[in-house]
């Protein structure tokens, strides 16, 4: 082996494998650069930033969709790209499509609400696309530095987005709180990463899993073992978790969330609550599966020292196995032997995530009770939902060593949840943003009797709220059901506790969502309020975004099918 083979393998890896799979993100990068150029050459009259951003995100979305339609997903083989920095599989493909689709919808929304006017449009869309890029990287991270980088790339532009309305005190306060809290947790996370990497001696997730398995933690925990090293590992893992919990706004690292949501514009809230959460949850899955599971046969093209021909061959011939049985038969999954050394790692992960999930869910729902500001209420609702979604991750990792097919089902539940949550929250925040433009208020009490002023919006908002509770005819019911089912499958005292608490929380959340419904539908209209007319485009947008809440409620199979396909290659 010499330098030549190294360079050759790098070239083939980068040019032939990685860049083609990285096209959507490249499109985002290109749009960002283009936007700068447009400003530099002062042709923004010709190319308004909205058009540019819209076109860029649509192109990126188009590039992200599988070439031969959804049926060809099975052809995506899991592989590491960029010499192991990122991993490309169906999960990352799914989340990427999700994020880019959201970006398209979001760009349209901001144009409709007018938060990004032509003067600051370039700045706004640059930040949005930059953050989306970071989230895409989070979703496919395979290396500790990539995790940190992805989180930074997603967060730092978001700080600015939170303060995008420059002249307002609250907006600037929100941005300051967000930025400093985020920087603090990023520091803690970085320290945790350093400890993890330092003990294990690598920053590459599969290698870490490999080394952890070699360390044999269970024997270290036994009396007389080197339990202090395990303590360092646990501390590192915990501090890494702090960074993730910040992104997830999980209790007790949620403090930024309500303040930022109240201070930032509603559109930005939609971005933070949907895209950011989805990316963070995917990252959580990545970490849980990356560290809690050893791939017996390494991914096809990760070895950079193989000759290019071999890489090409492997990537074409490898038929992705579809079922767990097949995986087992091929020796990729060997539940009894391969995973035992890592069961303490999984346990740790599960306990940590489950604890935070329980607390987040309960705290979020309870604290939402007395809120008067709708954005703030949604902030707590977001915290609660993030807790619920984390439960799915905990269940998935708990099932990982025992029953991978159920584990896949748990991840599928998570993906369904994320997808449906997109429509619920985007719809809700769109309504909030449009109403704010009309009546200059975001207080819940000012929504009184909305059903008489603009019935369509009110009905859609009601549907969204009921769906957020998770009541059966609407879409929000299905993912919750599936998460509960996964928890039941996972079993064990901890998971059953989580299950019970999750069930209780659904009941608790009833109160504050229905309170808003009551204000909208039953309370009398105040006399002071003038007529409200949203206009055609906003109304149509609300309809388009929130109709899926009803449609997927009645026909949940389609989403479930996508999600199940997307979880195919986790093992």
């Amino acid at each position, binding site marked *: 082996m010499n330098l030549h083979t190294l360079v050759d393998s790098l070239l083939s890896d980068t040019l032939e494998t990685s860049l083609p799979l990285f096209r959507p993100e490249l499109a985002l990068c290109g749009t960002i650069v283009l936007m700068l150029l447009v400003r530099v050459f002062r042709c923004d009259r010709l190319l308004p930033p909205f058009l540019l951003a819209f076109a860029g995100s649509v192109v990126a979305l188009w590039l992200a969709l599988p070439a031969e339609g959804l049926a060809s997903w099975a052809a995506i083989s899991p592989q590491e790209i960029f010499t192991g920095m990122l991993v490309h599989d169906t999960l990352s493909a799914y989340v990427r499509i999700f994020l880019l689709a959201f970006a398209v919808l979001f760009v349209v929304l901001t144009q409709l609400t007018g938060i990004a006017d032509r003067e600051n449009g370039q700045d706004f869309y640059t930040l949005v696309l930059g953050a989306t890029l970071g989230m895409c990287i989070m979703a496919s991270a395979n290396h500790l*530095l990539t995790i*940190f980088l992805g989180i930074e790339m997603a967060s730092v532009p978001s700080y600015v987005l939170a303060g995008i309305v420059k002249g307002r005190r609250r907006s600037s306060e929100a941005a300051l709180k967000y930025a*400093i809290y985020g920087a*603090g947790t990023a520091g803690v996370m970085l320290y945790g990463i350093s400890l993890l990497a330092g003990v294990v001696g*690598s920053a590459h997730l599969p290698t870490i899993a490999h080394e952890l398995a070699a360390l044999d933690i269970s024997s270290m925990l036994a009396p007389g073992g080197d339990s202090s090293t395990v303590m360092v590992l646990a501390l590192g893992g915990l501090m890494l978790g702090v960074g993730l919990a910040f992104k997830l706004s999980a209790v007790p690292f949620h403090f930024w969330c309500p303040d930022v949501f109240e201070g930032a514009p509603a559109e930005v809230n939609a971005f933070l609550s949907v895209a950011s959460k989805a990316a963070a949850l995917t990252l959580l899955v990545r970490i849980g599966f990356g560290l809690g599971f050893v791939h017996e046969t390494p991914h096809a093209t990760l070895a950079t020292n193989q000759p290019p021909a071999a890489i090409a061959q492997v990537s074409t011939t490898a038929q992705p196995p579809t079922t767990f049985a097949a995986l087992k038969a091929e020796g990729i999954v060997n539940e009894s032997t391969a995973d035992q050394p890592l069961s303490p790692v999984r346990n740790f992960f599960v306990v940590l995530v489950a604890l935070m999930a329980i607390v987040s869910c309960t705290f979020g729902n309870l604290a939402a009770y007395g809120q008067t500001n709708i954005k703030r209420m949604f902030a707590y609702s977001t915290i609660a939902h993030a807790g619920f979604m984390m439960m799915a991750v905990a269940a998935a990792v708990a099932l990982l060593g025992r029953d991978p097919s159920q584990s896949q089902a748990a991840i599928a539940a998570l993906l369904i949840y994320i997808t449906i949550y997109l429509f619920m929250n985007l719809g809700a925040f769109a309504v909030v943003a449009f109403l704010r433009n009309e009546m200059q208020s975001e207080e819940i009490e000012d929504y009184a009797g909305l059903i008489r002023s603009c019935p369509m919006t009110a009905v859609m908002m009601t549907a969204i709220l009921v769906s957020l509770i998770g009541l059966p005819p609407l879409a929000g019911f299905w993912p919750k059901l599936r998460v509960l089912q996964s928890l039941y499958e996972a079993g064990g005292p901890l998971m059953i506790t989580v299950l019970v608490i999750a069930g209780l929380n659904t009941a608790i959340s009833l109160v504050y969502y229905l309170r808003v419904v009551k204000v909208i539908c039953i309370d009398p209209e105040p006399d002071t309020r003038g007529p409200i007319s949203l206009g055609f485009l906003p109304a149509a947008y609300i309809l388009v975004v929130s109709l899926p809440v009803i449609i997927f409620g009645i026909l949940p199979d389609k989403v479930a099918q996508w999600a199940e396909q997307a979880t195919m290659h986790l093992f």
Partner: protein
Amino acid sequence: MIHLPLAHLLSEPVGVSHYVMVGAVLFTCGVLCMATKRNALGVLMGIELVLNGANLNFIAFGSHVLRNDANSLGLDGQLISMFVIVLAAAEAAVALAIALNYYNNHDSIDVDRADELLG
């Protein structure tokens, strides 16, 4: 001859542990700085200290001078710390801009004045 422990301390090479301890001190000072300074810029300085503490860890874990076994982080440590420096600079730039914006709106740099959003 008097055998001072101090001399003994100086005649042996230090290990990764020592570096990590210095890193821990920097980290803790940084966090405390963030938690106690009321001047937003002081808080930002705390962030710098925190990141620097973590960076010192990376350097120590990757160093062949301190630890000469197969399991060290190797060059990865230095590479990661370089990226951290860059990212810290980016973060500092944004945080400073946000602090200036805050100052413009509040006519004060005192973070305790940021008390409108609560509950």
